[in-house]
């Protein structure tokens, strides 16, 4: 089972078209194994991206170097998944009872 320990989901807010281009370039860096939940298209829509632990430092440095604003939407994805799994199991047991 693939786990997501330490993966973060960043919400990135580009403020101009140049920053959108920088984000599109980031999308092309396949070795970072980023999973874009919303893709960089225009400044009206924030970009959400899941970043594996091993790429966090690189991605954050990239954003900071390019003065691109971001926040951490999910701090540790695995924690959220674990809680979802537990919720699902509990609800199913309740139903059987």
């Amino acid at each position: 089972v693939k786990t997501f320990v330490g993966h973060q989901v960043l919400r990135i807010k580009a403020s101009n078209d140049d920053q959108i281009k920088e984000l599109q370039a980031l999308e092309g860096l396949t070795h970072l194994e980023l999973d874009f939940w919303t893709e960089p298209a225009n400044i009206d829509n924030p970009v959400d991206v899941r970043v594996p632990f091993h790429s966090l430092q690189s991605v954050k440095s990239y954003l900071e170097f390019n003065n691109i604003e971001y926040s951490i939407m999910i701090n540790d994805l695995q924690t959220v998944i674990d809680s979802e799994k537990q919720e699902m199991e509990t609800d199913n047991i309740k139903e059987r009872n």
Partner: protein
Amino acid sequence: SATFNYATYHTLDNLFKGLDAIVLDFKSLVTKQQIGTSTEGRPLYVLKFSTGASRPAIWIDAGIHSREWITQATALWVGYKLATDYGKDASITSLLNKFDVYLLVVTNPDGYVYSHTADRMWRKTRAPNSGSRCIGVDPNRNWNAGFGGPGASSDPCSDSYRGPSAESAVEVKNIANFIRSHGKIKGFVSIHSYSQLLLFPYGYKCTNPAHYTELNTVGRSAAAALSSLYGTQYKVGTICSTIYQASGGSIDWTYDIGIKYSFAFELRDTGRYGFLLPATQILPTAQETYLGLKKIMEHVRDNPY
């Protein structure tokens, strides 16, 4: 079907039991049809809501991106609600007296099982890609609408990999064949989840469709109905202008083959959880979505073409 727990996420087997329960309880209205199989041989079941022969129809699908679990959960509840509202709700009764409704609750069953057992964030199909170690095609980049254009990847390792050719994904091919052979589908709604959007064509190009004004009006009316329950705010517009250019999407294909009322919902995610919407929000999401869907279906019913 009345005791099925719609308020939690389920495995594929459980969802299929939910489908069977609806069919069993509403035999005179609902039947289950298999329109094909997935890459790994799982059935693609549609619920058909019908009160007579040779009717025009409305198509609704959910879960083409497997990790968007709220969509499969919502679609199952919508199926139950449609069945229970027939004969009680005048609008649904009138709709189903004129139109059939086809509901595909799990469009990408292989991906759904994989997202339960191996990788919660899995989005694509599970088809092997020749010459690559990476698996899967993004089935919403694989339709024959601007296939291979902007907003889809040619890299099999990408989550938005378009596949080698249009309709190469068997899941897509099965639906496309069904729609073509039916010939009287008048409305097509695809249910996705992310950040509350109600979208209409186009995505593969950034020009407005010929029926822009009407689609925009219907979309806004559906979003207002949806919002009336819990105040959830939706953005409405073309795929390209509202979110981003994306080629090979289902509603662009259906619109281009003449299904004027083609829409895609992006259900709520609260902006914090992505595809991990807490189970406590399944019923509220389903209930509000039903109101939006109902508006679209009423418009299809009242505006024959």
